[in-house]
C-alpha cells in the first residue's frame, strides 16, 4: 500500500537508527466545531511511521469522538478475546462537556487509546486501525455512519437467531439456566475481576473527592489570606506588615493547592479511572467468552445428540440417512468451528491477562509515584512558606 506520492524528505524526528520500525501517534489540538446542539470537538491525529503498510511517513487526519468509537467497536467485534483498550466515557453532562479540563482529559485518554492499540501486536496490524489513522474525512464519515446506524450487519441477525435457537434447545433438553463455563481457575478469575472493579471504583471515587478537597482548601486559603491582610491594615505599623506577609503566603499556597489539584486530577485520578475502564473492558471480553462457550457447548451437545440419531437412522431408514448425514457433517463443522473459536478466546485471554497485569503494574506504579511526589512537594512548599514567615512574626513586637 505504498502510496506513489510517498514523501522523500526525512522528518527531523526520524530515529537515528534508520530502518528500525516505529509507529508514533499523537492525539492533540482539540477544537470545538459546529454550533449549538450539534457542536462537537474534533482532534488532530498525527501518525509518524516508517512501516510499509502505511501510506507515508507522516499523516494528519481530523477525527471526532464517534470515529474513535467506531474503531473500538470494530475491533471489539472482530477480535474477541483481546482486551480492547477502553475509551473515555461517551456521555457527559451538557455544561461540563466543553470545560477545558474535561476536553483535556478526554484528549489524553484518546491518545492513550490509540497508542495502546499501536503497541498491541495483533491490533496494530488491523486494517480498521489503518483506516482510522489514514482515511480522509469523507471516507471516515461514511464508514462511521454505516456502522453506527440502526442498520445492523447480517451477522448480527444470525447471531441473535442462534441465541434464540440455543435457548429453545435448552428448554427442549430440559435445562433451565444457561450453561456457564465453570473451571475453578476461571471462577477465580471471574471473582477477581468483579471484586477488583469494586475496589478500584471506590479508590477512584475517593481520589476524585481528594481533588475537590484540594480546590476547596485552596479557595478558602485565598479568602482567608485576603481577610487577614485587611485585618492587619486596621492595625497599622509593624503588625500590618506581618499580617500582610501571612496573608500573602496564604494566597501563594492557595495557588499551589490549585495546581496540585490539577496534577492529581490528570496524573492520579485519571489513571485510576482508566484502570476501572480497563477492567470493564475485560468484563466485556468475559461476556464474549461466555457466549462463545455457550455456542460451543450447545453445538457440541446437539452434535452428540444428532450423532446418536444418525446411528439409529442408518439401520432404520437408509434413504433418510444420506440426507441427514449431510446435515450432520455441516453441524459437525459448525460445532468444531465454535469449539475452536472458544478455545482461541481462552488462549488469547491468557496472554492478554499477563500483558494486562504487567502494564497495569507499570501504570499504577507511576500514578502512585506522581501522587507521592506531588503531595511531598506540596507539604514541603507549605512548610517552607510558613517557616519563612515565623521569624518575622517572632521579631515583631507589639509595644
Amino acid at each position, binding site marked *: 500500500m505504498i502510496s506513489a506520492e510517498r514523501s522523500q524528505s526525512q522528518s527531523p524526528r526520524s530515529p537515528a537508527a534508520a530502518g528500525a520500525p516505529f509507529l508514533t501517534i499523537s492525539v492533540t489540538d482539540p477544537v470545538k466545531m459546529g454550533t449549538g446542539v450539534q457542536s462537537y470537538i474534533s482532534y488532530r491525529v498525527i501518525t509518524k511511521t516508517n512501516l510499509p503498510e502505511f501510506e507515508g511517513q507522516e499523516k494528519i487526519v481530523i477525527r471526532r469522538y464517534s470515529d474513535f468509537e467506531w474503531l473500538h467497536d470494530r475491533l471489539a467485534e472482530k477480535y474477541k478475546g483481546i482486551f480492547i483498550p477502553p475509551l473515555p466515557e461517551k456521555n457527559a453532562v451538557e455544561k461540563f462537556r466543553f470545560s477545558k479540563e474535561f476536553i483535556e482529559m478526554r484528549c489524553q485518554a484518546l491518545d492513550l487509546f490509540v497508542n495502546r492499540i499501536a503497541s498491541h501486536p495483533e491490533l496494530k496490524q488491523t486494517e480498521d486501525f489503518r483506516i482510522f489513522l489514514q482515511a480522509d474525512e469523507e471516507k471516515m464519515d461514511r464508514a462511521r455512519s454505516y456502522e453506527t446506524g440502526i442498520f445492523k450487519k447480517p451477522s448480527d441477525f444470525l447471531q441473535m437467531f442462534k441465541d434464540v435457537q440455543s435457548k429453545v434447545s435448552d428448554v427442549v433438553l430440559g435445562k433451565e439456566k444457561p450453561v456457564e463455563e465453570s473451571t475453578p481457575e476461571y471462577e*477465580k478469575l471471574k471473582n*477477581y475481576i468483579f*471484586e*477488583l472493579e469494586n*475496589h*478500584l471504583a*471506590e*479508590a477512584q*471515587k*475517593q*481520589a476524585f*473527592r*481528594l481533588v475537590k*478537597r484540594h480546590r*476547596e*482548601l485552596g*479557595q*478558602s*486559603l485565598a*479568602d*482567608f489570606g485576603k*481577610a*487577614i491582610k*485587611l*485585618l492587619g491594615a*486596621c*492595625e497599622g505599623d509593624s*503588625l500590618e506588615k*506581618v*499580617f500582610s506577609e*501571612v496573608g500573602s503566603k496564604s494566597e501563594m*499556597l492557595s495557588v499551589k493547592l490549585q495546581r496540585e489539584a490539577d496534577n492529581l486530577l490528570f496524573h492520579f485520578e485519571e489513571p485510576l479511572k482508566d484502570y476501572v475502564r480497563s477492567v470493564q473492558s475485560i468484563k466485556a471480553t468475559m461476556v464474549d467468552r461466555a457466549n462463545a462457550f455457550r455456542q460451543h457447548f450447545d453445538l457440541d451437545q446437539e452434535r452428540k445428540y444428532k450423532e446418536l440419531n444418525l446411528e439409529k437412522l442408518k439401520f432404520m431408514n437408509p434413504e433418510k440417512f444420506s440426507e441427514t448425514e449431510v446435515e450432520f457433517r455441516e453441524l459437525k463443522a459448525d460445532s468444531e468451528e465454535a469449539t475452536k473459536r472458544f478455545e482461541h478466546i481462552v488462549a488469547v485471554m491468557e496472554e492478554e*491477562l*499477563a500483558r494486562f*497485569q504487567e502494564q*497495569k*503494574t507499570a501504570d*499504577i*506504579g*507511576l500514578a*502512585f*509515584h506522581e*501522587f*507521592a*511526589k506531588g*503531595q*511531598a512537594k*506540596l*507539604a*514541603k512548599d*507549605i*512548610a517552607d512558606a*510558613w*517557616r519563612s*514567615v*515565623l521569624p518575622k*512574626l*517572632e521579631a*515583631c513586637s*507589639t509595644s
Partner: protein
Amino acid sequence: MMSSTAPTDLPAGDEDGDMETLHLAATAASDYASVASTFDPLLSASPPSPPTPAAFPLSPASSSFVDPPSYADVAASSPHSASASSSASPRSARAAASEYTFIAVSDPAPEAEPAATSLVPGSSPTYITYLVISARRGEHRRHAVRRRFRDFVTLADRLAEAFRGHFVPPRPDKNTVESQVMQRDEFVAQRRAALERYLWRLAEHPAIGPSDELRVFLQVEGKMPLPSSTDVASRMLDGAARLPRQLLGEETVATPQDVVQPAKGGRDLLRIFKELKQSVVSDWAGVKPPLVEEDKDFLEKKQKLQDWEQQLTSSSQQAEALVKAQQDMGETMGALGLAFIKLTKFETEEALYDSQRIRAADSKRIATAAVKASRACRDLNTQSVKYLDTLHEHLGIMLSVHTAFFDRSSALLTVQTLMSDLASLQSRIEKLEAAASKIFGGDRARLRKVEELRETIRATEDAKCCALREYERIKENNRSELHRLDQERKDDMLEMLKGYVASQIEWIPYPNPRRVGE
C-alpha cells in the same frame, strides 16, 4: 534513615506548653521519614508524605462560634501549670497576673426547684447546678460553691451595672435547650466549658478581677449572694405609679443617686420619656444639644474599632471556612487511605501474578502514608482551632465594647436632658417674673411658683452635677479600657498568628532533605 529534626527546632512560640504534641509530632515525623526511605524501590525515591495543611474538626453542633478546648484542658499545659516554655505569651502573663490562680467549673448536677408544685406527680422541673471551685491569689484554701446558670446571669447583670464604661466580658448565651439540635448532655458540656471560660475572663480583667461581686460569687456558699434584679414588669408598674405625681409636679426630679443609673429599665418613666425626647431633638431635629461628645481621640478610636470589627467578622468567617476545608481534606485523605488498604488486602490475597503483589505493596505504602496524614491533620486541626479561635473571642470583646460605648452615650444623654431641663426651667422662671412684674404689688401666686421653680432648679443642678460626674467617670473608664484593649488586641493577634503558623510547621512532616530531588 535520619529521623526528622523538625521538633527540635520548634520555635519557642509554641508556648502553650503542649509537651505532648511535641512528642506526637516527633513520632509522626519519623514515621514519614521511614516511609519515605522505603517507598518505591522501583522508581527514584521521593517521599510519599502526603500532606496538607491542617484542618479543623468542627465541634459537633457548632454555631457561628467554634468551641475551643476548655480552660481545664488547656490548664494542663497552660501557663497556669509549670510550663517549660521560655518566653511567656502575653496571654499567659495576663492570666498569671490575675486575681485568681485557679477557677474550674465542673460536676453538672440536676436539682429540683425548691417550691415547685408539680402538676404531674413524680416529675418536678429541675435545673442544673455547677460546682465552681476557685482559689484566690495569696490564699491557700480553695472555695467551692454551687451555682446555677441563672446565678451567672445575675452576676453578669450586677457587673454591668457596677462597671459601666468598662469592657465587661460577655456572658454565655442563654439559648434554651429546645432550640438546640444537639442532645442535652452535649449542651450541658458546652455550657460548662463556656461558663469556665467566662469566669476566667472576668478574673483576668484588671478592674473586675479584684471586685467584690466576683469574690462573693465565687466564695460565698449556699444561696446566690448577689441580689437578682427585680423583674421589669414590677419596675414598670412602680414607674407608672410615679408618673402622675411627676406630671403634676409633685415629684419633680430624679434624685442624684438615680441619675447615676441609665434611665432605661429604671422606674422613672418620666425620665425615660424626657431622654427619649432629648435624643430625638438632638438626632432628628438637628438641634445641637447643650453638651456634645467632643473627644476627638475617642471618636477616632471608635471609628477605627468599627473598621476593625468589620474585618474581624469577615476574618472569623473565613477562618471557619478554612477549618472546615482542612477537616474535609483530612477526612477524604483518610477515606482514600482506607480504600487503598482494602485494595491492597484484596490484591495480596487474590493475586494471580507476581506483578500484582508488587502493586499491592505500592498501594499499601500509599495507603499507610495517607492514613497517617489524615491523623496528623486531625491533630493539627485541634491546634489551629485553638489559635484561630482568638478571632471569635475578640468578636465577643467587641460586644462588650459596644456596651461600654452605649453606657457613655446614655450617660451623656442623661446630662443633656438635665441641661435642657435646666434651660427650660430657667426660661419659665423668666417668663413668670416678667408676667409678675407687670402686676402692681406683685403676684403672690406667681412669685410662689417662681420660688418653687428655683428650688427645682437647685435640685436639678445637683442632679446634673452627679450625672456629669458619672459621665466623666465613664469616659475615663472608656479611655483606660481602650488603652488596655489596644495592647491586648495587638498581643492576642500576634500570638494567634504565631501559634497558627508554628503549628502548621510542626504538624506538616518535613520531607527528609536527602530524599527530595534524588
